[in-house]
């Protein structure tokens, strides 16, 4: 089933952020949401995830199960990396530690409270959570923030390995992130004033 966006518009305090956006995302396709700050990338993701309501237009065919890596990690700070995975994705089971290791998180860091992890380590935990969740759509908002080049390549490989038949939405301000995930098409977002 395709996700169909028709004449979508959203504004904040009278300032339009997204205006008249239409596109169709077939199930299993990969899309980039590219553009400078303020163009409405994160807003579009939030609308698709159902966290915001559009002012106009519609989003039809949004999957029932979606997973997201937010711009911020949104981890449960007092809990360990493994506990974060268990609490959000109870069915992850033994796949959790394996995926964290695959993303390059050391074993001793898996049982430490995430508040004590570095930015890059915490990002990997948040990415693992999104990859483990059973879903038909995976939304990644700047997934490589805080990762060096080696970790970035490792994370991209893990995303591709665990993506399966999910629709992928990648929000990024870096064009070079798109080929890392085999993305060849972008949702056209433009500054609303243009």
């Amino acid at each position, binding site marked *: 089933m395709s996700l169909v966006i028709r004449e979508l518009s959203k504004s904040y305090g009278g300032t339009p952020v997204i205006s008249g956006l239409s596109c169709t995302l077939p199930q299993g396709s990969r899309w980039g949401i590219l553009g400078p700050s303020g163009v409405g990338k994160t807003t579009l993701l939030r609308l698709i*995830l159902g*966290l915001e309501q559009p002012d106009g237009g519609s989003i039809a065919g949004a999957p029932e199960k979606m*997973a997201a890596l937010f711009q911020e990690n*949104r981890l449960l700070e007092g*809990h360990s990396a493994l506990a974060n995975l*268990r609490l959000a994705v109870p069915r992850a089971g033994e796949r959790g530690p394996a995926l964290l290791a695959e993303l390059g998180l050391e074993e001793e860091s898996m049982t430490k409270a995430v508040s004590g992890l570095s930015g890059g380590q915490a990002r990997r935990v948040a990415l693992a959570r999104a990859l483990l969740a059973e879903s038909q759509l995976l939304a990644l908002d700047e997934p490589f923030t805080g990762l060096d080049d080696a970790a970035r390549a490792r994370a991209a490989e893990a995303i591709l390995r665990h993506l399966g038949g999910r629709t992928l939405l990648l929000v990024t301000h870096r064009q070079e992130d798109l080929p890392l995930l085999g993305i060849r098409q972008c949702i056209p977002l433009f500054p609303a004033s243009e």
Partner: protein
Amino acid sequence: MGRRGRFWHTPWAKLIAILLALGVWQLAAAAVGNRLLLVGPVAALGKFFSLLGEGAFWAALWFTLSRVALGFLLAFLAALALAALAAGFPAAEVLLAPYMAAVKSVPVASFVVMALLWLSGRRLSIFISFLIVLPVLYAAFLQGLRSADGRLLEMARVFRMGPWNRLRGIYLPALGPYCLSACRAALGMCWKAGVAAEVIGVCSGSMGGKLYNAKVYLELDSLFAWTFAIVLASAAFERAVLGALGWLLGRMEGLA
């Protein structure tokens, strides 16, 4: 800060202050020279230690402790349920507001007199402890639930986290500090209100009842000894409940 200045922040300075206060009290008692008007700390402590050997003391302690504890427990559970309701439904908060405001502003004595018309003296302290603590805990719990991180709640929504995991991962860490500080304040209030109810209700066999008897028979040493016992019991109860609560919150959060 100089060496002398630092001394006044040590436990020794506190001990000296306490000993001095006891000395002033003892001198005042000696100056008054009438045991019906004022007894010194030595006589009060002597009476306290003699009470410890009496079965009636432990019976009164159990009587009051069990009722205050039950009142506190019921208030805790009711406040939690009502705060959850108010956090989820704004209408519930508005509808509950007049009751909470009334309980907070009406003097304890008025409630005691009113409650005496409906309840026996033996149950009075349960009801009064419950009533006095309820609005304090309710307000703190509601504030704690509202302080839960909205971004984490969004995350929980996207990942379809179950209610138990939301409670452990998001609500309990938000609620914990509010819960502990509100309980710290409420536990003391609970004892004061419960004992006051026993005194006004002339509840025989209770610590409040013993205080009342000490006043009636002008036994000032008993009055001080029972007061000391109530303060000690209240402090011990507070420590025990806060310790248990801290442990329980930690366990529940850590059960991931």
